[in-house]
């Protein structure tokens, strides 16, 4: 099964389009970490995913609210942003552990801020700026993550 998926995204529209493609293979219960510096396009990717899942409203940055919940067609999606965390213990204090369950899809920006307290990711998504474009790499860490990337290859 596929463990790795890489792609070059020339612009923001391509990031959104890739998010829409990724949405088709995401299943409830999956946990994705989104890595990339400020302005890399993590929230843009999430916007593409949510759009494809039928969310018509805004997709605001969760930096200040820490988590934005969405109920979309076939799952509960939680968009976390731990940018403002300084102590991993805040993960427990915030009660975020309860959000991770078989019915929910969790997308976590700045996961390193909660370190090992955060449930391990099925897929690591790394976004790196390359001029105006972005280089995106998905790495599967679990069987369901691998299955997801396998399906992505055939979308």
């Amino acid at each position, binding site marked *: 099964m596929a463990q790795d998926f890489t792609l070059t995204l020339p612009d923001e529209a391509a990031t959104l389009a890739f998010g829409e493609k990724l949405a088709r293979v995401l299943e409830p219960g999956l946990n994705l970490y989104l890595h990339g510096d400020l302005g890399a396009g993590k929230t843009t990717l999430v916007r593409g995913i949510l759009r494809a899942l039928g969310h018509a409203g805004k997709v605001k940055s969760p930096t200040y*609210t820490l988590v934005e919940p969405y109920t979309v067609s076939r799952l509960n999606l939680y968009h976390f942003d731990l940018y403002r965390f300084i102590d991993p213990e805040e993960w427990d204090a915030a009660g975020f552990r309860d959000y991770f369950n078989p019915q929910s899809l969790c997308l976590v920006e700045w996961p390193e801020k909660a370190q090992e307290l955060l449930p391990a990711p099925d897929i690591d998504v790394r976004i790196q700026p390359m001029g105006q474009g972005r280089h995106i790499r998905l790495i599967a860490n679990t069987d369901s993550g691998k299955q997801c990337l396998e399906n992505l290859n055939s979308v």
Partner: protein
Amino acid sequence: MLILGIESSCDETGLALYDTKQGLLSHALHSQIEMHAEYGGVVPELASRDHIRRALPLTRHVLNQAGKTLQDIDGIAYTQGPGLSGALLVGTSIAEALAFSLNLPTIGVHHLEGHLLAPLLEANPPAFPFVALLVSGGHTQLMRVSAIGDYELLGDTLDDAAGEAFDKTAKLLGLSYPGGPAISRLASQGTAGACQLPRPMLNNGDLNFSFSGLKTAVLTLVNQYGNQLDEQAKADIAYEFQEAVTEVLTKKCMAALRNTGLDQLIVSGGVGANARLRERLDAATKRRHCHVHYPRLEFCTDNGAMIAFAGAMRMQHAHISDHGFTVRPRWDLAELQTP
């Protein structure tokens, strides 16, 4: 009627006493900004712990300042949301416990309603209706305000708030938190036209905002400068960034006035303290024969006075509380109703 106001939604603990006949009697603030500065943002757990330490000494302080005692208070207003839940719970529990022991009514205030009404604490306040721009680290909204509790959302950010864009741009430039004052200081050394940033959503015909792309454009500029990113280059970026944000905010405010046919604008929230934004809004409203109102600088950011005031406005209409309470970390302003 004498109202004690308690604000603890984020990183400031604010207490104030507002009298419906005499106006604002006293207010005090403890800011956690220094504590948070080294982390470049607000830390929820730290915020709650600090509110616990500060709330009661500040309460005693505002009472002493006004020459009042706990027995003089007629009601307690507290920020019920939106905000960080741990921080909100501190203010809420203190308010409800104090009110229970003194047998006083309480009222949970929407934090943004507090900001929205803050300019009414000043001399010559605008009469309803007016257009309000709420612009801070967590929000960028244009509202039509017809009465207390009658708020119609005209425009909102589709992604990042303007203040968040300031904070993240400051971080990209290696500046301190909060980003607004740091960017403004540096911008004064910048050269106009030295670099270019987009004006997101400027001419898209609606009143919505988007600042996420602007942050990305700053990242691209920083990468382009590479090793040449010296102090002057940073100042040039800060200048251009501030111009971009304030131009978009100003033009959308003017469009909101035009669309609603109103001639009064109020501006509140932390970004409302930005001098360049005020300069632009002053000029633009003057050209169109409109009026703009701001809260004093210290009431642009979170404070207890605005909560005491909003609570007093609502409590003048009968309000019964059973001292059961809940916080509302996420709460849409448009859900509010007139008292």
